[in-house]
């Protein structure tokens, strides 16, 4: 016998578990937790997506001739030649208005390759009508915030886009993103992101599915109720007057969430302006292609999240500042969903393993997995049908869906540790978004 005895015991336990009464006891304890925390959010998103889908069907394909001038601030660091694709995709937009492309090379003295790659696009861009390229070499490295604020000095557009150097855009992106600003109450537009290197590895495919759920679908749903939780740093669009009102970007990490929260701080006072998410203003970004790099990135992101909520922006959690609707949404999707839930899940799982026999735990986990998988497949198909602008491409990902609940669970656990690391270890200062001598001086 080559296969050890305990292996068969585990298999037998898993197969028997769903039929054991103890399993159902656990499941019943689990249900309210899921029902009251997660389901309302999923339902909210689903309703929002349905609403969007209905409105989208009646949308006129080409809009009135409102073509404001646009400045695209591209924060570049060591992207190298990848920045050329970003510049090229912006210069070739199907947009009759003026587009000023401003790549800001942070630490251009050290990143000569990126700097010369951006400069070499000059002829190609200037040849095109209504396109201007202005490469800004920021010789001293100072982080994303300083790069964006530097760029603002050179930007002359009515609409300002804050973009990443390793993100390229669909050719109708500017057209889609700017159309919202015709409505004077729209202050910011959050752009949608997909994974550019989706075929690179398993982890990029899983991230593609995650981006589809958490960005394209979730933000569409939240946007329908005016509850956009974050304007991605890789792709944010602002009315210039709004940026001037809040005084540009603020020092510290996670400047995208920071600026979102700071914009929201004005929502309670200026009821008339909104943040809109457009699922069809599409950018393709480069994501980590190994699990190691992926978890390193998430450690930073999740840490930044709790840093934002607990340290820098705890005062934002006030109905007086952001209005009741956003207050509840922030509490729910931000704090509970993204920070509290992972910690609860970890504690709950640990409790299971301690309090119950292995077979029961395994059975419970299997059922929970099946529940999530079923919910995910249904939601995925609905979202693809209602939302996706590339349905065929997205449907191919359906084969990877069985892995997603496990991936998400691992992510949750990792997120919990990141939150703890941030709370106890000041992880946000350990970031590669800005050099240490800059983050050190930050107030938070």
């Amino acid at each position, binding site marked *: 016998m080559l296969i050890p005895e305990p292996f068969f015991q585990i298999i037998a336990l898993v197969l028997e578990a769903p039929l054991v009464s103890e399993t159902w006891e656990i499941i019943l304890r689990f249900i309210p937790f899921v029902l009251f925390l997660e389901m309302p959010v999923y339902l909210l998103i689903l309703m929002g997506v349905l609403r969007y889908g209905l409105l989208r069907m009646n949308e006129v394909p080409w809009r009135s001739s409102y073509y404001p001038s646009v400045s695209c601030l591209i924060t570049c660091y060591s992207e190298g030649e990848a920045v050329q*694709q970003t510049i*090229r*995709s912006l210069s070739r937009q*199907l947009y009759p208005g003026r587009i000023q492309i401003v790549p800001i090379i942070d630490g251009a003295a050290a990143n000569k390759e990126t700097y010369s790659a951006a400069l070499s696009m000059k002829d190609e861009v200037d040849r095109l009508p209504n396109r201007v390229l202005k490469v800004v070499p920021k010789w001293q490295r100072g982080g994303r915030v300083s790069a964006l604020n530097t760029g603002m000095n050179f930007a002359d557009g009515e609409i300002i886009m804050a973009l990443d150097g390793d993100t*390229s*855009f669909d*050719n*109708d992106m500017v057209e889609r993103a700017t159309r919202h600003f015709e409505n004077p109450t729209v202050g910011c537009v959050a752009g949608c992101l997909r994974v*550019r290197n989706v075929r690179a590895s398993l982890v990029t495919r899983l991230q593609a599915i995650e981006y589809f759920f958490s960005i394209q679908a979730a933000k569409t749903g939240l946007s329908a109720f005016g509850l956009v939780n974050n304007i991605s740093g890789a792709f944010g669009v602002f009315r210039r007057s709004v940026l001037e009102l809040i005084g540009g970007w603020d020092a510290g990490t996670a400047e995208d969430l920071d600026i979102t929260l700071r914009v929201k701080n004005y929502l309670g006072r200026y009821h008339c302006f909104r943040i809109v998410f457009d699922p069809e203003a599409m950018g393709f970004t480069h994501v980590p292609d190994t699990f190691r790099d992926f978890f390193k990135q998430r450690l930073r992101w999740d840490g930044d999240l709790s840093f934002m909520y607990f340290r820098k922006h705890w005062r934002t959690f006030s109905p007086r500042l952001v209005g009741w609707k956003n207050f509840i949404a922030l509490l729910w999707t931000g704090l509970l969903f993204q920070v509290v839930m992972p910690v609860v899940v970890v504690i709950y799982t640990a409790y299971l393993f301690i309090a119950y026999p292995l077979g029961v735990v395994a059975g419970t986990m299997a059922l929970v997995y099946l529940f999530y998988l079923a919910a995910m497949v249904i939601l995925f198909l609905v979202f693809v049908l209602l939302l996706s602008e*590339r349905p065929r491409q997205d449907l191919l990902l359906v084969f990877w869906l069985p892995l997603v609940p496990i991936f998400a669970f691992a992510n949750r656990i990792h997120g919990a540790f990141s939150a703890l690391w941030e709370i106890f270890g000041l992880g946000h200062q350990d970031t590669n978004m800005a050099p240490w001598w800059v983050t050190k001086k930050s107030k938070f």
Partner: protein
Amino acid sequence: MVVAFTSEEGVISMEEIRLLRFVNCGNISFAPQDGVIDVDTLEDLVAKIRSVHGVILDGDFSKETVLMAVKEIRKIPETCYLPVFCSPSLDSDSALFTDGAIKSLDQAWEKTADMWGKLNEVDRGSLELSRDFRLLAYLALRQEGLNPLLQPFTCDAYRYPIAEFLGGESETRQWLRNLRDRGLLSQGPLIDRIRSCPKCQCTHLNYIDVCPNCGSIDIVPKEFIHCFTCGRVGPVDDFLQENGYRCPFCGTHLRHLGSDYDHPLESFLCNDCGHKFIEAHVVVDCLSCQTRSDPEELLVNTIHGYRISEKGRAAARVGSIDDVYALLDRLNYVIPAYFNQLLDWMILLNRRYPDQTFSVVGVRFVNLIQVSEKLGRHRASQIVDALAERLRQLIRNTDVTTRTATGILLLLLPMTDEAGASVVGGRILELVNLAETSPKPQFQLVAFSSSQNMREGESASSLLARILGELES
């Protein structure tokens, strides 16, 4: 300070220099001064110009006035070489037509004196003869050469205004090139290379890209799209639909540059004949005569400055555009025809009065061509110049010289017998030793004396034929 110098007219001291000042009413830079004649009209300037040694344009004249004044001075042969200065108030464009701005009248005086000091470099009798001499005289007296001026609104683009003033406006460029080919001018720095219409030589050309098929100028750039899904390539217009790019072959919505499609090339479309092409044909339209040419048909002109050459200086000095032998012509020179006549008369005189002896000495510079090749024309002409100077000391006032077309110097020595002739010949041969050059110039010498070698029925032409025959054999 009294600077005295000699000219062919004799000695002129600094005090004798008279300057003519053309003033612009109420706007003069220098106070009036003795010896400076003021005029305020162009007519007065022309009337008095022949009696002065230099001209000053004092005031901020318009460019037209400066051009007219300078032109008047340069076109009169006797005054074409006169220095013309201007006051510092004249704008720099106009100052280019003068000999430069002066800071004070004293400076004008000194510069004029300098120039007149060099006047023996110029044979003033020749100025009337041709525009060649006027230009050479002008250049021989100045450091600067002849520089082209950019005149954008003229067909030539570059012109030589001074040369035009001196020689009239016809075919100036060809004239200068001709002088260069004859060695009188040397080429200065290359200023520009300019293309001109093969028909009318105008430089105002329009380079225009046209359809290679029908020659129409109505062409538009057309970008192409390559659809990654089906691999088709076609002009953007075929793909553009109201909601973006859609491939007309496979129907794919092309959203993302680089992953759905790219722009493989840019080409052109002719709106007249519908021809598609990658590279437009470039033709050149002359804006003056409307002739259309291909770029390779254009005339390419190099625009140079010109400097006077040594040969040019020599020509200016002797008033004859010939070679270095001309330098010898300062030795009691008579033209060959008169020399012949004189010799005939001497032969007849000797027949009647045999004691009226005379001698003829023929001198040939055997290796002048080699010396000239070895040391350069400039050095060779210096050597000949020095020899001519010494020969002048050797011969007497009554001796007469001439020079044949082949460069042989003939001396007619009246009242000189065989012994006297050989003394002169010996001294001429000694001259060679004074030259310190290598190779040394070599002389071949033939002496004829009426007392010895006279034949029956001898005439000047037969005598000279004998001498030349001996020298050139």
